[in-house]
C-alpha cells in the first residue's frame, strides 16, 4: 500500500512539475518569455516584460496574430541557471517560439536546450557574440560589436580634436571587455591614443581610488564600460576631483539605464552616451509607447532596452503571418523551422524606432546614436549609420 501511495505521489509530483503531457492551447498564441522577474536585475526584467506585453496588447487590439489573440507568458528564471534550464526544458516540449532567456548566464545554460530541440528563442538583449553561438535558433538584436562600436566611438572621438589620450573604465562582465576592445580599436583608428584601462571590479563599492587611478594617467577623454550605477558613481568621483569636460566622457549603451540617471543626478549633465534607440523620435507609435510606459511607471521614460522584446513580439507576429504557421501541434517542428528561417532573414521589419533587415540572424542596417545627457533626457548629437 505504501509503495502504491509513494508511486501515486511521485506521479502527481512529476505531473505538477510539467514532466507529463502538457495541454495544448490552440485558441491563442502563447509566447513564453524566460525573463529575470526576481533577483538582482528584476527591475530590468520588469520593463523587458512590460515591452513584450505592451506589444501583445496592441496586437490583440488590432485583431491578434492571424486572427488569434496572443499572450506573453512570463517565466521567471530568477537569474539562476539551475532554474532557467528546467524552465527551458519545459518550454521546448510544445512551444512554437520563445523570448529570452535573460541574462547571459541563463542564456548559456538554457539556450543549448532550445538549439537541441530546434526551437527559436529570441535573445534580444545580448550581444551578437553570445547570440551567434546559438544560431540558427536565435537571432542577434545587435550588429557585430567590433565593427559597429569601433565606427560609433570613432565618430564620438572625431568631435573633439583636442582629445588625444583616452582611458576606459571596464567592468569584467560578459561581453563588456570585448566591447571595450572594440572602442579601443575604433579610437586608435581615429588617431587617439588609448591609455591602460582601469578595471572596475564587479563588487566595487568605493570608486574614488578608481577615479584617481584613471586621472593619474592624465586622460583627455574617458569611456565607461560598466554598469549604470557604477558609471554614475564614477562620474561623481571624477567631478569631485575637478573633471570639467563633460562631453569628453562617453557612456556605453548597456549603462543607459535608470540607475545612471538616479545615481548620477545633475552630475551626468553634459556627458555623452551611445545607444541603439532614439527616445526623441516623434511618431504616433513611439509616443503611445512612451505614454503607456509613463502611465505604468510613475511618469518615467522608457529605458533603452524596453523596446527590444516589444519589437521581438511583433517580429514573431510577422513571421507567423508571413509563413502561414498554424500552431498545429502536429506540425510543431516544421513550423518552428519556418519561423527561425523567416526571422533570420527578415527584411524591412517595422520596429518601433526604425525599419531594419536581418541577414543570417544579424541586423545589417540598424542605426546607432550618440546623445548628450541633460537633466535625465538625451539630446541627439550624432546618428551613425553603417
Amino acid at each position, binding site marked *: 500500500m505504501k509503495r502504491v501511495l509513494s508511486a501515486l505521489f511521485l506521479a502527481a509530483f512529476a505531473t505538477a512539475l510539467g514532466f507529463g503531457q502538457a495541454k495544448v492551447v490552440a485558441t491563442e498564441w502563447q509566447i513564453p518569455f524566460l525573463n529575470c522577474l526576481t533577483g538582482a536585475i528584476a527591475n530590468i526584467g520588469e520593463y523587458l516584460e512590460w515591452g513584450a506585453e505592451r506589444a501583445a496588447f496592441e496586437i490583440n487590439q488590432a485583431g491578434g496574430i492571424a486572427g488569434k489573440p496572443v499572450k506573453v507568458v512570463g517565466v521567471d528564471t530568477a537569474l539562476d541557471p539551475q532554474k532557467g534550464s528546467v524552465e527551458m526544458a519545459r518550454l521546448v516540449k510544445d512551444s512554437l517560439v520563445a523570448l529570452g532567456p535573460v541574462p547571459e548566464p541563463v542564456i548559456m*545554460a538554457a539556450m543549448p536546450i532550445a538549439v537541441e530541440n530546434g526551437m527559436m528563442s529570441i535573445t534580444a538583449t545580448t550581444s551578437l557574440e553570445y547570440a551567434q*553561438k546559438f544560431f540558427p535558433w536565435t537571432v542577434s538584436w545587435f550588429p557585430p560589436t567590433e565593427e559597429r562600436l569601433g565606427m560609433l566611438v570613432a565618430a564620438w572621438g572625431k568631435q573633439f580634436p583636442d582629445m588625444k589620450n583616452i582611458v576606459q573604465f571596464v567592468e569584467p562582465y*560578459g561581453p563588456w571587455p*570585448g566591447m571595450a576592445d572594440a572602442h579601443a580599436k575604433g579610437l586608435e583608428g581615429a588617431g587617439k591614443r588609448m591609455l591602460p584601462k582601469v578595471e572596475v571590479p564587479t563588487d566595487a563599492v568605493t570608486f574614488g581610488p578608481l577615479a584617481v587611478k584613471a586621472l593619474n594617467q592624465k586622460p583627455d577623454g574617458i569611456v565607461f564600460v560598466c554598469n549604470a550605477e557604477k558609471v554614475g558613481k564614477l562620474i561623481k568621483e571624477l567631478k569631485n576631483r575637478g573633471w570639467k569636460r563633460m562631453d569628453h566622457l562617453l557612456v556605453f549603451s548597456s549603462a543607459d539605464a535608470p540607475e545612471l540617471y538616479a545615481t548620477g543626478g545633475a552630475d551626468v549633465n553634459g556627458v555623452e552616451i551611445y545607444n541603439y534607440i532614439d527616445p526623441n523620435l516623434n511618431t504616433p507609435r513611439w509616443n503611445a509607447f512612451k505614454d503607456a510606459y509613463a502611465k505604468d511607471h510613475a511618469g518615467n521614460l522608457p529605458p533603452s532596452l524596453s523596446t527590444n522584446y516589444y519589437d521581438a513580439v511583433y517580429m514573431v507576429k510577422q513571421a507567423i503571418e508571413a509563413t502561414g504557421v498554424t500552431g498545429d501541434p502536429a506540425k510543431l517542428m516544421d513550423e518552428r523551422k519556418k519561423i527561425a528561417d523567416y526571422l533570420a532573414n527578415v527584411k524591412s521589419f517595422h520596429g518601433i524606432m526604425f525599419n531594419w533587415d536581418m541577414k543570417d540572424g544579424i541586423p545589417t542596417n540598424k542605426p546607432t546614436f550618440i546623445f548628450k545627457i541633460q537633466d535625465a533626457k538625451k539630446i541627439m548629437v550624432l546618428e551613425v549609420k553603417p
Partner: protein
Amino acid sequence: MPLPLYYYLSITAVNILMSWALYLPYRVGHLHFITVANMAISGYTAGFLVLNLHVPFGWALLCGFLLGGLIGFVVSLFIGDAPTFAVVIVGFTFIFISRTIIENLSIIGGTMGMFGLPNIGGSPSAHRWIVLAILYAFVLAAGFLIYRFDHSCLGRAASAVFVDPDLAASLGVNRKKLGMLVQTVSCTIAGGCGVLYGFIYKSFHLDFFTFALVGIFMTVIFVGGYTTQWGTVVAAPILYGVPLLLPPVVQSWRIVLYGAALILVLVLKPEGFMTPRFVRSVETFLSGSRRRRNTSLKEVS
C-alpha cells in the same frame, strides 16, 4: 526521458553532492566554501581539455576530480586545523581569486564563458543518460563513503572535534590530519561536480559559480540537518523541486521562503529536520527490528 525531469534529476544530484562536500568538512566544524571555487577551476579545466585538446570526457572528468583533490589537499596543509572563521575566509578568498583568474584567461573564454561543450556519447539522448548515470553512481559512491566515514572511528572523532576540538585533541584525535582528510575529500567531490555541472549545461560561465550556490548548499544542509548525511538527501530535491511546483506569483517569493525556512529551522530545530535520532528511528522501523528488539527486551525483563 522527459527533458525537465533530466534537468531536475541531474541538478538535484549536483546539489546533493555539493551539499555533502560542505557537510563533510562541517563534521569537524569547517565551513569549506573553497568547494565552489573548486567546481569552477575543475570545470573550466575539464572544459578546456575537452574542447581545445580533444581529451576524452572520461579523462577530463578524472582530471577534474584530481585537480579538486590536489587543491583541497594543498590548502588543507595550511588550514586543516584552522578555526571555522579562518576556513570561511579562505573559501571566500578562493572564490574571488578563481573568478579573477578565469575572467582574465581568454583561452577559456574569459568573461564571455565557454560555449559548445560536446555531447558525451555522440547524441543528446546518450549524453543525458551518461551524465545521469555518472552523477547517480557518484552520489551512491560518495554517499557510501560518507556513510562509512560517519559510522567509523574517524566519524566519531569528527563528532568529538565538532563538539570540543581541545577535548578531542586531548583524547588523541589528530585534528589536523582529520581536517585535511575531510577537506581533501570534499574538494575532490567538488572538482568532479564542477565538471559534470558544466556538461549538464554544455557550457561554462563564471556566474554558474557564485555565492548563490553557497546559499543553496547551506540552506540544504541546515534545513535538512547538518548532523547526518541524510538531511541533504531529503532537502536537496525538495528545496529545488518545490519552488518549481509553486505558482509563478509564489515563486517570486521563493528566496524569502528559503530564508524563512532557514530561520525557522535554526530557531525551532537547530539540528535540522533529519537528526541522528530520527535516522535511527527510521532505520529501525524499516529494518523491522523494533519488534524483535521489543521482544528481546521483554525476555530480558
